């Protein structure tokens, strides 16, 4: 069990992590989500005493610095490539094993486990991002720890690798370990995580299980296709529902159930060609939860292009993108 309390970190006047408190339970994979710059990495660094900040993190009741050989209890990887480019993968792990009083052969065992046995005597400077991530995982698993803290471990893995990572993390969690995995990609996390900690701009947005997150942050919409769209739109808007044109044709209605829309159409004698409830995805929930808190918002590509075509060259102040 990891308990983080009141984590806070500022860089100058900028608050990167703002009073975060959460728990990571053993036995499940906890996804740590947030858009770029939300403070995920900073939070993990705070938890592991790498950064100085406020707050306290306890691992089964103890602070990180109090643990005698932390690698045997907490396995963490914060950056994909944190190894010397000419020290072989095997020597890198043997060095860490020596510092944690682990037998040398542990290095070969974990390399086998992550599938790097063939390149264990190679210099890692030639490693692809995916191989580097695997070496990072090997490093985290070196001490057979009860707790795993991984910052964007899926970054750079191919679909097969992501699948493997997901199965591995789920299996490790099922053995009763605490697993905290960060990502800014929800699609990745939706396959892996059972619980979520979602942050934006350093602040807690949501902490709970995945289904609850979807329920809380999505509105179900209904797709309607009808030849008398204008008339139907008016009627629905009068009863307080929101109606928007669907880019792929038809109308998207929120605030009214499919059954209600069907009855209204029947009452008014409107022909319907399609009436379908759109179930919200985790992705939608994520965007709706974090959209307002995105740190670095890109300009909307279409708006940007339009302003360029206009030939005005003026800076477009409208920050679109994350609606």
């Amino acid at each position, binding site marked *: 069990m990891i308990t983080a309390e009141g984590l806070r970190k500022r860089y100058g006047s900028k608050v990167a992590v703002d009073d975060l408190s959460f728990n990571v339970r053993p036995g499940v994979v906890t996804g740590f989500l947030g858009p770029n710059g939300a403070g995920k990495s900073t939070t993990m*660094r705070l938890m*592991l*005493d*790498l*950064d*100085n900040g406020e707050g306290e993190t306890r691992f089964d009741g103890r602070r*990180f*610095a109090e*643990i005698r*050989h*932390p*690698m045997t209890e*907490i396995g*963490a990887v*914060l*950056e994909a*490539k*944190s*190894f*010397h*480019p*000419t*020290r*072989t993968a095997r*020597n*890198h792990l*043997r*060095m*860490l094993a*020596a*510092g*944690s*009083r682990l037998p040398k052969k542990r290095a070969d065992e974990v390399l086998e486990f992550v599938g790097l046995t063939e390149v264990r005597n190679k210099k890692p400077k030639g490693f692809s991002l995916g191989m580097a991530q695997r070496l990072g995982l090997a*490093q985290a698993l070196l001490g057979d720890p009860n707790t795993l803290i991984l910052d964007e471990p899926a970054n750079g893995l191919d679909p097969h690798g992501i699948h493997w990572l997901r199965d591995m993390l789920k299996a490790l969690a099922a053995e009763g370990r605490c697993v905290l995995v960060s990502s800014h990609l929800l699609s990745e996390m939706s396959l892996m995580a059972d619980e979520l900690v979602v942050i934006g701009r350093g602040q807690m947005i949501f902490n709970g299980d995945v289904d609850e997150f979807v329920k809380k942050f999505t509105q179900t919409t209904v797709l309607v296709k009808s030849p008398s769209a204008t008339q139907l739109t008016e009627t629905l808007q009068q009863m307080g529902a929101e109606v928007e044109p669907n880019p792929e044709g038809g109308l998207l209605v929120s605030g009214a159930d499919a059954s209600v829309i069907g009855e209204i159409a029947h009452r008014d004698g409107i022909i319907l060609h399609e009436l379908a409830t759109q179930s919200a995805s985790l992705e939608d929930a994520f965007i709706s939860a974090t959209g307002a808190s995105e740190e670095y918002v890109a300009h909307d590509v279409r708006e940007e292009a339009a302003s360029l075509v206009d030939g005005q060259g003026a800076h477009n102040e409208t920050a679109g993108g994350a609606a």
Partner: protein
Amino acid sequence: MIDALRFESTRIRTLRSTYWLIGLGLLITAGIAGIVAIASSDEPLDDTLIMTVLTGGGEFATFIPIFMAIIGIFAVGHEYRHGTIQPTLLAIPQRSTVLLSKIVIVLFTSAVVAIVSVAINFGVGTLFWGEAPDLTASPLNEAVPGYIVMVMIYSLLGIALAQLFRGIPAALVILLITPLLVEGLIAGLSMVPALDWLQPILKFLPFGAGQRLLAVTPYDPQGGPEFDYLDRWASGGVFAAFTVILLAVAWYLFKKRDA
């Protein structure tokens, strides 16, 4: 602490640059020793000549000290250059233990290398001179240990600089530029009559003072500023104090700052 030392000794042994720097240092100084010994093979041996051969030209070209300083710079600088400071601190979170174990291992390495280098050069000298120089008489009985101490201080300075700047380039620049430019400049300025008040501080310029550790003759201005250095060990103390102050600042910042 034992585990941190085992970590650090594995670290230094699994780095190719360690072997390069040591091998190259031993080779170059042995080469210089050989050239000087051949050239002087029919001259009578004096202390200066013996010292030049034993240190491979240590009075004017500080190969072994600089190379050992680079090993010190790498010991800390690589951690930042390649981001290994994170796994290192995740394995050993006590920062003082990490730094202390680096210091112990690097000092040990530089002492061994300096002793081996002197031994090799002693062999080279004996070979060409046809007689073994006597190292038990003054001033060689102090200058040879002085040289070994100087090499060790240089390696410690490497650690201090790399930890202070948390990287390799700045540490290297300071290490190479300070003795040459800064101390040269101050010595030069002190010869301008209006700036002769600078003279009293010359003996406290750290690199110049450190060089006195292996001196076998009194300081000779040779057209440079005229002043007296402190004695051998006091001058060495000046160099050591400079290094220790830098190290203390670096240590304090290492404990306080984000990794």
